[in-house]
Structure formats: structure tokens, C-alpha cells
């Protein structure tokens, strides 16, 4: 029997906000295995980004349980949790620092001795080394996105959570990011949980997929199968642009 080690697992997780009549996240359960690629796909307002925030405790769930490996996330010191699971937010903010400043900051905060030089780290995210001393203001959105990825990788996380990693990028650059993420997962063994409303990115990432709508899981499976559901399915409706909703 092969034991699958779960890097992240969610059991019946719910999240409600006072004053809102419906839950943002409603009884979600799924697991992410070590080194796995899982993509949460769905329209705006389906609760995808909130799930990522719940996993790293930037929001507090109202019901259910979330584990990082064998540990309930509430039992872990929050710094350890965020070292294990790194969130890359949708807006790539470089905090007014240079690229090196960002990497120094991440190294300081993670408290983990560097196993990769900054040069190697930048080359892993397809950035030229001469950007190291550039200010964030001088970089393109795509370059900033890659720097935030490099910054997240400093602490050698077990899992990377990516919130709409290509939302600010041209379609041509989207494929580049997808290829980069797949390489990172293969080379470093890092589990990658991506949130996107872009079927193109979801297709490029492959792996497993979960389709969310109104805070619930509507469909799940291998991404290629999910994206080729027949015309009556909710995923097909979404792909055809017939599902447009926002909370």
C-alpha cells in the first residue's frame, strides 16, 4: 500500500462574515499531497482566494479543520505555519524595497539558512541576476510576480499558494509563469495550490483541479478532464462565459 502524505488538508471548512447572508466558503474539503499541483478554478466571488487566506490564517475559518501535514494549523506557531506554506498574493508588492531587500527580508523572517544563492534563486524564476539591486518600482508586473515567487521560495516552503498569479499579465506571459510553476514543482518538490479564474492558466498547469462556485465545490478531477466536461455541466457553462458572478 502506498501512503500519500498530505501537505495540506481541509475538512468541511466554512467561512462566514457577519452581516452577509451566505457563507463565503461553505463546507470545503480537499487535500494537497506533497509535491502535487492543484488548481482551484471558478468565477470571481466563488471563495477561491479566501480559501488560501484561511490556510495561512489571514482569515479565521468559522467551521471545519485545516491541517498542515499532521498538525492542525491552529496548533502551530503562526510563523512556522507561514514558513511551511507560503502565500503569494495577487498584487505583487515589493514593499518599497529592492529585489535584494525583498530576498533579505524573506530570509530574515523565515529564519531558515539559505540553501540557494540569490543568483540561483533568480535564475529559477527566470529573472536576470542584474535585477538584484533594482528597486521594485523599476520592474514590470511580470518581473515583480517572479520576485514575489523567489521571495516565497527563500524559506523552502512545503507548499506555495498562488492567488491569481497571472491576473496582471499578458496572455503570452501567462504561459511562461505556468511553465515556471510546473518546473518549480518538479525540481523542488514543492506542492503548488493555485487559484485562478483563467481556464488557460488552469490548462497549462495541469495536475488536479477543483471547480468552485458560491463557496462550494461543484466539480473536481484531473484538470484536463475537468476542462473537457460536456455542455450541460457547470464547468462547461463557465468556460463558455455563461457563469459570471461576484459576491
Amino acid at each position: 500500500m502506498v501512503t500519500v502524505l498530505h501537505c495540506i488538508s481541509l475538512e468541511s471548512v466554512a467561512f462566514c462574515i457577519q452581516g452577509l447572508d451566505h457563507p463565503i466558503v461553505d463546507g470545503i474539503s480537499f487535500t494537497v499531497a506533497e509535491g502535487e499541483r492543484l488548481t482551484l478554478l471558478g468565477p470571481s466571488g466563488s471563495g477561491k482566494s479566501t480559501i488560501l487566506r484561511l490556510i495561512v490564517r489571514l482569515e479565521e475559518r468559522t467551521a471545519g479543520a485545516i491541517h498542515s501535514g499532521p498538525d492542525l494549523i491552529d496548533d502551530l506557531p503562526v510563523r512556522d505555519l507561514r514558513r511551511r506554506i507560503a502565500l503569494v498574493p495577487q498584487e505583487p508588492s515589493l514593499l518599497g524595497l529592492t529585489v535584494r531587500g525583498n530576498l533579505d527580508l524573506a530570509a530574515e523572517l523565515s529564519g531558515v539558512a539559505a540553501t540557494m544563492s540569490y543568483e540561483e534563486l533568480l535564475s529559477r524564476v527566470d529573472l536576470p541576476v542584474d535585477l538584484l539591486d533594482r528597486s521594485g518600482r523599476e520592474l514590470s508586473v511580470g518581473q515583480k510576480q517572479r520576485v514575489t515567487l523567489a521571495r516565497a521560495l527563500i524559506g523552502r516552503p512545503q507548499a506555495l499558494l498562488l492567488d491569481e498569479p497571472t491576473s496582471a499579465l499578458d496572455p503570452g506571459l501567462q504561459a511562461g509563469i505556468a511553465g515556471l510553476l510546473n518546473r518549480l514543482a518538479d525540481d523542488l518538490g514543492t506542492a503548488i495550490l493555485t487559484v485562478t479564474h483563467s481556464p488557460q492558466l488552469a490548462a497549462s498547469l495541469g495536475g488536479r483541479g477543483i471547480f468552485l462556485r458560491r463557496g462550494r465545490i461543484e466539480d473536481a478531477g484531473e484538470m484536463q478532464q475537468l476542462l473537457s466536461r460536456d455542455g450541460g455541466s457547470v464547468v462547461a457553462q463557465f468556460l463558455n462565459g455563461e457563469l459570471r458572478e461576484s459576491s
Partner: protein
Amino acid sequence: MPDSSTYIQLDWVSMMAGSALILLTIAISFWRGLGAEKDLFIASVRCAGQLLVMGLVLRYLFRLREWYLVIGVLVLMTGFAAWESYRRVRKPVAGTLWVISACVFVATLISVSYLTHVVVRVRVWYDPQYLIPLAGMILGQAVNGAAIAAERLTQSIRDNVGDIETYLALGATPRRACRKHLRDAVHAGLIPTVTAMMVAGIVKLPGMMTGQILAGADPFDATLYQIVIFFALSFMAGITAMMVVELLHRRFFVGDVRLRREAV
């Protein structure tokens, strides 16, 4: 205490003549349609009323010289200072009033005790002639320090939620995530004091020194008092602003974990 024979006392004619200045300003504003009359009028009435009440209270206190009355007035003054600071913060986060009150009270207690006992070395610990004016001056500074720091910190945190969460996601503590905003807020809280110290004696003569000179004190003695007062004022503004930012930024977070949704 200066002898009344060494200074010219103001009578009602003098007061009316002084009032003519503010009335003239109000009249010009009205004539030119500049809309400043209401603010000027309310401020003048409040200012005159508050000062007259304070003058009568002080006269009464100086005669009675009872410690509990002096402490009562100090507590009232501190309470008003805390309330005034709080009022100046736009959309304050829950708990701001308590934070500001605690900081203003503690800073005032430290400053007034130190000034009266270590610096001036009063003979009677509750001597109202020293305690009340000194407290009045440093409280004015506490109001500035607390209000500006609290306002700047509150806005700064709300304007930078994304960056603060990025810090948290990288494993930073709330204080580390807000460090830049704490520094900016303390810096802003100190600007009025630092500016006043920079121009003291060059651009303007400070109020206390001027008052002492008008009351007949030796200008050099008045200068020594003023220097000490400036240091006490900067201590007050600095310590109040620092305490406020240290306590207030915590009100935006749930433990060390996340930003409080309703605060931002």
C-alpha cells in the same frame, strides 16, 4: 511669584482693545466673503471662556492650596486632553480612546512628577503655582503628539493593508509588519515640537518665556525655564506618540495572526 508692581495689569479697557483685533478679523472675513467668521467667532468665545474659567479656578486654587483640589484639576485637564486627542482621529479603531487616555495619563504623571521634583524642586509637592501651569503646557504637547501619531498610524495601516498582509504572510509579527508605519507616525507626532524647538529664539520667543519676561522676570532666568520646558515638551510629545503607536497598532490585529477585519 512676580510682584504686580513689576508688570502692567490689564483692565477692561485693555481687554476690549484686545478683542477689537479678533472682531476686526471677523469683520474683514465677512466683508470679503471668505467664510472664516464662524470658526473665528466660536474659537474666540471658547478660548476666552475656557481661559477665564481657568484663571478663576487657579486664583481659587492658589488661595486654598489643598492637594486634593490640585490633583482633581490635573485629572480633569488630563481627561480633556485625552478626549481632545481622540476627537482629532478620523474613524478611530475601537479602543483608541482607552489607548490615548492611558498614554496621556502615564506620560503626564511621569513628566509632571519629574519636572516639579527633579528639575524645579518645588518645596510643596502639590504647589499649584508650579504644578498647574507646567501640566497645562505639557498636556498641550501630549494632545498634539497623541492625536497626530494616532491619526497617522490609523490612516497608514488602512492604506497599506496589502503590504502589511504581505509581511504577515512572510512570517512577520504585527509590529514588524507595521514598523514603517510606527516610525512615520512617531515622526509626524514630533514635527510640531521639533519645529518649535528649531525656531525658538530666532523666529519667535516662546510663550512661557515671553510671559515671564512680561511679568517682570529676568530674561536669562526666563530662558533657563524655557529650555527646560522645551525638553519636557519634547519628552511629552515623544513619549506619548511612542506609547500610542505601540499600543494602538495592536488594536488592528487579532493576536499575532491577522488583521482585524472590522478595524481596516
